């Protein structure tokens, strides 16, 4: 079992023939992801990486019954691509692109929600169900199959956490990189219940960072609804106020969104919070062996 995606999930790629799209689509195919085609306007009818190319998402969905789209289009065209996917009946859009204007994502997410389409990202590594389906840019080899679910705002910290978990002799069910932009798709609060309901997931790792209050919302949700152990790390304990730390959303405004307040809220909700990111794997092993 897993959440959201598995080996049967039919995936198309928007921005299929571009440099990034091609490189990562090929990696996904090699991993075993069921990529059934891609979309690049004006290249419909061609074949790319052995898969059909379509002019529009609608055509791609009609021809392939794809339910998930992996989006690689440049930042200025992300909102358009997301809305096109929603309009075509895609169920989940995984938006890898970094640097989409916030206003564009505001409209795109509203439309996606209206159409019942879930989104992951933007500015994220994507989602991977270990040894089944990789939709994104993560190095697949570090995600060994196991019983730990992973939710993270950061790409490389996701790899770091998975690597540590695997070194402890454990593994991952599904890992979701939710992205670090001010407006993102699925977040902790929507993903936690999916992991709670997944019979194979026995523990959940959540990695957050400074800025916004998604981790605080998650803490409140965990306290009331989650029975599986949750291990958390919040990045940016040493970040100065008012400075943007790489991710567009990673900024402490005034006194809101600090790592400290998030760590305290999570601890109060019974979450196992680690102070150093080097201790994530160890803590997971400790909690699961109890």
């Amino acid at each position, binding site marked *: 079992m897993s959440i959201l995606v598995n080996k049967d999930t039919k995936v198309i790629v928007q921005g299929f023939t571009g440099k990034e799209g091609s490189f990562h689509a090929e990696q996904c195919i090699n991993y075993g992801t069921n990529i059934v085609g891609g979309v690049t306007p004006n290249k419909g009818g061609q074949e790319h990486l052995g898969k059909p190319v379509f002019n529009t998402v609608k055509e791609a969905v009609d021809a392939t019954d794809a339910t998930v789209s992996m989006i690689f289009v440049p930042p200025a065209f992300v909102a358009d691509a997301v809305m096109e996917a929603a309009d075509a009946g895609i169920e989940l859009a995984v938006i890898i692109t*970094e640097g989409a204007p916030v206003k564009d994502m*505001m409209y795109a997410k509203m439309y996606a929600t209206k159409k019942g389409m879930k989104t992951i990202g933007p500015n994220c590594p994507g989602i991977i169900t270990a040894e089944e389906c990789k939709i994104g840019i993560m190095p697949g080899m570090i995600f060994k199959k196991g019983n730990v679910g992973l939710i993270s705002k950061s790409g490389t910290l996701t790899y770091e956490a998975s690597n540590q978990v695997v070194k402890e002799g454990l593994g991952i069910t599904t890992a979701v990189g939710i992205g670090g932009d001010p407006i993102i798709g699925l977040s902790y609060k929507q993903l936690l219940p999916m992991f709670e309901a997944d019979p194979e997931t026995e523990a959940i790792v959540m990695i957050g960072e400074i800025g916004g209050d998604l981790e605080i919302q998650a803490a409140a949700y965990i306290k009331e609804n989650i029975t599986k152990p949750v291990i958390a790390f919040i990045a*940016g304990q040493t970040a100065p106020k008012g400075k943007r730390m790489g991710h567009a959303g990673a900024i402490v405004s005034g*006194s809101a969104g600090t790592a400290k307040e998030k760590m305290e809220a999570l601890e109060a909700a019974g979450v196992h919070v680690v102070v150093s990111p080097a201790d994530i794997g160890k803590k997971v092993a400790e909690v699961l062996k109890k």
Partner: protein
Amino acid sequence: MNVHEYQAKQIFKEYGVPTPRGIVATTPEEAVEAAKELGGNIWVVKAQIHAGGRGLGGGVKLAKSLDEVKQLASEIIGMTLVTHQTGPEGKLVQKVYIEEGADIKDELYLGIVLDRAKEMPVIMASTEGGMEIEKVAEETPEKIIKVAVDPTIGFQGFHGRELVFGLGITDKDEQKKFISFAQKLFAIYMDKDVELIEINPLIKTGSGDFLALDGKMGFDDSALYRHPEIEAMRDISEEDPDEREASQYGLSYVALDGEIGCMVNGAGLAMGTMDAINYMGGTPANFLDVGGKANAETVAKGFEIILKNPKVKAIFVNIFGGIVRCDRIANGILEATKMVDVHVPVIVRLDGTNAPEAAEILKNAKIDNVIAAEDLADGAAKAVKAAKGEL
């Protein structure tokens, strides 16, 4: 990207948001000319820097004669202004804004930001103008009215009514004026991809008019490509030169006060690396994300920028290769040691894609001050020791 008050007010004027008349000046002589052109017998001389709290820091002064305008302008231009937002080193004032005096009856606050929880803009208004709004939010949160506006319907009459009733504006004419003010400000927020717009204070004059006495604006960097008119307002002298240089190479850099330079791929891991160093008893000297497009050139540049800081006693390179391949980083490190004099120990931890090849490259290079680390904990521990001269 942020702009100066005088630039924010230019945008206000384009949209019909009422502001006092003013002219920017870079010399005391220009300041006097500006005051003459504005006319009247009272002027405000305002330092133009990208930071709040200018008044308290002595950067905003009232002049009652042209001589006084000249004197104040000569004092303020060239001064290093220290406010609660500049840090102790302060900021050099290069321009002043000469503004006509205003008849202040009431001071209000009006701002628009993204409400990240609601995922739409929220207009914030308060009767406590002229105060630090963070302080008001902390001490008397009930004095801040928040009205979220769904951008798909835009600013409607009811949004305006919520604002004026919340602020206790009862005069019908004043209500109309305030609603129109807020509506125009909202249009600016949406049209220009604004990240934050703040007017503190927004004043009510004796005759019941509303004027933007101050103006602070920040813009979404990701949307600047479609606003060349805003990009043209960029004042490079207000930006940290190292941060700026880094960004030109696709690196994201923030200077801190510690001793251990960090070079990391990914913003989250970069913050996590700083936290790990702190946890091990060390202090990070910077945040540096080499991003997904790191190559030998950008990595070498990263070293150069880190080493500009004389406090740096060791560098911790922590790379988990996903998009960035570790062998590329390894080559970057080698090239950097040829381009820059790396006079401090460099702790290198490379993991992920092509990590074994990277380890091989580094081993074959045989560079004395490059020390390999096994994992994050080992790397952080070694970096802390190296900075203390114990490695």
